[in-house]
C-alpha cells in the first residue's frame, strides 16, 4: 500500500467508527446534522473539492461529480424531509471510497504481479578490477569489456563466452524449459540465467542494445498500441457518463411532471432519490479498468510462453486469423541439411558415408558439412590426398588409396560412370569408388519435429487456409507440404514474388478475418510488414525480426503459433466477458434503480463488486500454461 492509500484507509476506518458512534448516541436536530456533516466531509471532502475543481476546468462529467451530486442530493432530501436520516449519504460516500481504495490496491497488485513475471531486467554486471570482482550497473559496461557471470546470476549483456562453460536457463526469454549448453566461443544472450558454472563473457553490445533491453522495451510499449476493444471502451465511457446523467435528470423531472399533469401526487422526493441512485450506478470504472488490464495480462502471459506480442491490437488480431502463410526454410524446416538416406550402396553404408565425408573434407559447402556431421567422427586429413573440387559437379579425391568421386549426376557423366537415379526428393550425391558406382546419399532439409503437429493444431483452431511459400523447387516443396498436410504450395518464388502472393491472398480473405505470415524474419521483412500480422520465428538475438514483425516467437518451435492463437482467444473471451458482464450488470441496476427497487446501497455494492470481479477475471488472462 502506498502512503496515499494508507491515509485513505485511516480516513475510512475513522469515519466508519464515527458513524457507529453517531448511530448509538441519541442527538437530534441541528447538532445531529452538524455531526453527520462533519463525518461526511471527513470521508468525502476531497471528492467534493475535486468535483468543484473539475467543473472550474470545464470537465463536468466524471465520477467525482456524480458521487458529489448523488450524496449531496441524498443529504438534501434528508434535510428537506426532516427525517434526520443522514446515514445514507455518508454511507454511500464511505462505500465509494472503500471501493476506490480496493480498486487501487487490486489493480496495483495485479499490475505488479504481471510486471514481476516479465522482470528479466538484470540489476548488475560483475567486472574484474584489480583482481577483485566488482558489481557495476549494466549500463556502464562498454562494448568489448569482459564480464563475469556466476552460477545463479542473470546474464546482463549479450556477448561471447571467453572462458568456462555452463548450462543456461533460457525459459524467461523463450518459454523453452530445456536448458542450453554453452562453452568458449559460443554467443550468449542477455536475460538467460546461468545455472551451473562461472563464465567470462566478452560483451558484443552495450546494455541498451542487448536482447534483454530490447525485449523489455518491446513488452513495456506493447500496450500502447490499442486494440479495437479498448478503443470501443474509451469511446463508450465518453458517451456513457453524460448519457446516464441526462437519464438521471429525466428520471428526476419527467415522471413527477407527468403525474402532476395526470392529477396525481408528484412524489418528487421519490423520483429524485431514484435519479440519485442512477448517478451512483453510472461510474464506468469496471469497464475502463478491466479491459486494458485483460490485454496487459494476456501480453504478459504470452511473453512468459516465449511469444512477444507488440500490441493489444495484434493480440486481438491473432484471434481472427483464418489464413496462415508459412515460409518454408527455417520456419517449417530447420534450414539445415541432413543426410536422409543412403541407397544402392555396394559396401556397408557407414563406409560409404566415411569415404564421402573424407573426400569432401576440404569443402565448406553446406552439403559437405552435413556429410561430415552425419559421419560423426573427426576427419583425419592425412587419409585424404589429391582433392580436386569441380565447381557445380562435386569432388574427386584419393582416400585410403582409393579414388573416390562424390558429386551430382553431371560428375558421374563426366567420369563416364553410369549412376542409378533416385526417387527420393532432395539433393542426391552419387559416390563412385575406383571407377565403380558405389551408391548415392540423399540429403535434404529436415522438417521440424513439431511442424506437422503445428499444422494440425492450426486446422483444429479453425484456420481454413494454410499456405506454404518457398524459393525452393517444386518437387522439394510439394514433398514437404504433403508430409505436413499443407495443400496449397507456391514454389520457386523470389522474395518479391512472396509479397505479390501475400497481396493476392490478402484480397481473397474473408471480411473480418485476418492473414498471418510466419517467416524466420531474416529476408522476409517486406512480407512480414505487408501481412495483417507478421510473425517472426527463432528471433532470439535477431534485431531485424524484432523490428519488422508484429509477433515475435523467441525460439523456433512452430507449435507456438497455435499456442499464440489460443492465448489470444482466451484473452479475447475474457475481455468480452468483462464487457458484457460489466455493461450488463450496470444496465440491470439502472433498470432496478429506475423502478425504485434498487436503493443507493445496492447501487454502490454493484459498482464495487462488478469492478473487483472484472479485475480478477482479467488477471486470468495471465495464466497460459495449460492452453
Amino acid at each position, binding site marked *: 500500500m502506498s502512503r496515499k492509500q494508507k491515509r485513505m484507509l485511516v480516513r475510512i476506518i475513522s469515519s466508519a467508527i464515527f458513524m457507529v458512534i453517531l448511530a448509538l448516541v441519541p442527538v437530534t436536530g441541528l447538532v445531529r446534522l452538524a455531526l453527520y456533516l462533519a463525518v461526511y466531509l471527513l470521508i468525502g471532502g476531497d471528492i467534493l473539492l475535486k468535483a468543484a475543481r473539475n467543473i472550474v476546468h470545464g470537465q463536468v462529467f466524471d465520477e467525482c461529480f456524480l458521487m458529489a451530486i448523488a450524496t449531496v442530493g441524498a443529504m438534501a432530501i434528508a434535510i428537506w424531509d426532516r427525517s434526520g436520516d443522514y446515514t445514507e449519504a455518508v454511507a454511500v460516500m464511505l462505500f465509494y471510497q472503500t471501493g476506490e481504495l480496493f480498486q487501487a490496491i487490486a489493480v496495483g497488485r495485479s499490475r505488479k504481479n504481471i510486471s514481476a513475471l516479465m522482470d528479466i531486467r538484470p540489476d548488475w554486471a560483475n567486472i574484474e578490477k584489480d583482481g577483485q570482482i566488482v558489481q557495476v550497473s549494466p549500463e556502464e559496461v562498454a562494448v568489448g569489456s569482459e564480464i563475469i557471470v556466476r552460477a545463479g546470476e542473470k546474464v546482463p549483456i549479450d556477448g561471447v563466452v571467453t572462458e568456462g562453460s555452463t548450462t543456461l536457463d533460457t525459459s524467461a526469454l523463450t518459454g523453452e524449459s530445456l536448458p542450453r549448453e554453452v562453452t568458449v566461443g559460443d554467443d550468449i544472450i542477455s536475460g538467460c540465467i546461468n545455472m551451473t558454472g562461472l563464465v567470462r563473457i566478452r560483451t558484443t553490445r552495450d546494455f541498451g542494445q542487448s536482447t534483454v533491453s530490447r525485449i523489455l522495451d518491446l513488452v513495456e510499449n506493447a*500496450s500502447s498500441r490499442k486494440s479495437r476493444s479498448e478503443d470501443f471502451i474509451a469511446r463508450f465511457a465518453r458517451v456513457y457518463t453524460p448519457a446516464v446523467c441526462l437519464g438521471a435528470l429525466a428520471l428526476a423531472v419527467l415522471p413527477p411532471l407527468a403525474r402532476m399533469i395526470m392529477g396525481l401526487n408528484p412524489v418528487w422526493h421519490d423520483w429524485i432519490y431514484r435519479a440519485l441512485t442512477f448517478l451512483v450506478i453510472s461510474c464506468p470504472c469496471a469497464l*475502463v479498468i478491466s479491459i486494458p488490464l485483460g490485454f496487459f495480462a494476456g501480453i504478459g502471459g504470452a511473453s512468459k510462453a516465449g511469444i512477444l506480442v507488440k500490441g493489444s491490437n495484434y493480440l486481438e488480431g491473432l484471434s481472427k486469423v483464418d489464413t496462415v502463410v508459412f515460409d518454408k526454410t527455417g520456419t517449417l524446416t530447420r534450414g539445415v541439411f541432413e543426410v536422409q538416406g543412403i541407397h544402392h550402396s555396394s559396401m556397408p553404408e557407414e563406409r560409404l558415408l566415411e569415404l564421402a565425408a573424407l573426400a569432401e573434407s576440404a569443402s565448406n559447402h553446406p552439403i559437405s558439412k552435413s556429410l561430415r556431421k552425419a559421419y560423426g567422427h573427426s576427419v583425419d586429413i592425412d587419409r585424404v590426398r589429391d582433392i580436386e573440387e569441380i565447381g557445380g559437379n562435386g569432388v574427386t579425391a584419393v582416400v585410403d588409396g582409393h579414388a573416390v568421386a562424390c558429386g551430382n549426376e553431371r560428375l558421374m557423366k563426366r567420369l563416364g560412370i553410369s549412376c542409378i537415379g533416385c526417387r527420393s526428393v532432395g539433393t542426391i550425391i552419387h559416390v563412385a569408388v575406383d571407377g565403380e558406382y558405389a551408391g548415392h546419399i540423399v540429403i535434404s532439409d529436415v522438417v521440424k519435429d513439431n511442424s506437422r503437429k503445428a499444422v494440425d493444431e492450426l486446422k483444429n483452431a479453425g484456420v481454413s487456409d494454410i499456405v506454404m511459400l518457398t524459393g525452393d523447387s517444386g518437387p522439394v516443396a510439394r514433398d514437404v507440404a504433403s508430409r505436413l498436410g499443407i495443400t496449397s504450395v507456391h514454389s520457386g518464388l523470389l522474395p518479391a514474388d512472396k509479397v505479390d502472393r501475400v497481396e493476392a491472398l490478402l484480397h481473397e480473405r474473408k471480411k473480418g478475418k485476418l492473414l498471418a505470415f510466419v517467416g524466420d524474419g531474416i529476408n522476409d521483412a517486406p512480407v512480414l510488414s505487408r501481412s495483417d500480422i507478421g510473425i517472426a520465428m527463432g528471433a532470439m538475438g535477431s534485431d531485424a525480426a524484432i523490428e519488422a514483425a508484429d509477433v515475435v516467437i523467441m525460439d523456433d518451435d512452430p507449435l507456438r503459433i497455435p499456442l499464440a492463437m489460443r492465448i489470444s482467444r482466451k484473452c479475447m473471451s475474457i475481455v468480452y466477458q468483462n464487457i458484457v458482464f460489466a455493461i450488463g450488470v450496470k444496465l440491470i441496476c439502472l433498470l432496478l434503480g429506475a423502478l425504485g427497487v434498487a436503493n443507493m446501497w445496492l447501487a454502490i455494492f454493484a459498482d464495487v463488486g462488478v469492478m473487483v470481479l472484472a479485475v480478477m477475471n482479467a488477471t486470468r488472462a495471465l495464466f497460459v500454461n495449460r492452453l
Partner: protein
Amino acid sequence: MTKTYRIEVDCAACALKMENAARKTDGVAGANVNFMTQKMSVDFAEGCDHRHVMESVRRNCKRAESDCEVYLS
C-alpha cells in the same frame, strides 16, 4: 521525436484523461498513456523544445486530473 516519461496515476479513467490532455497540448504530435506500466510516451512535433512542451503537458494533465504526476526527468 518520441520520449517516454514516468507517471503516477491511480485509475484507468484518469489515465485516459491525461492522455487526452497531453494530446491537446501545443507541440505534441501524439501521446500515449500506459496505465499498466505507469508511463507516458509523447511524440513531439518538429522543432519543439521537448522540455518546454513537457512543462505544459504536465500542467494540462494536472488540470484534467488533479491527482496525477508526470516526472519530467
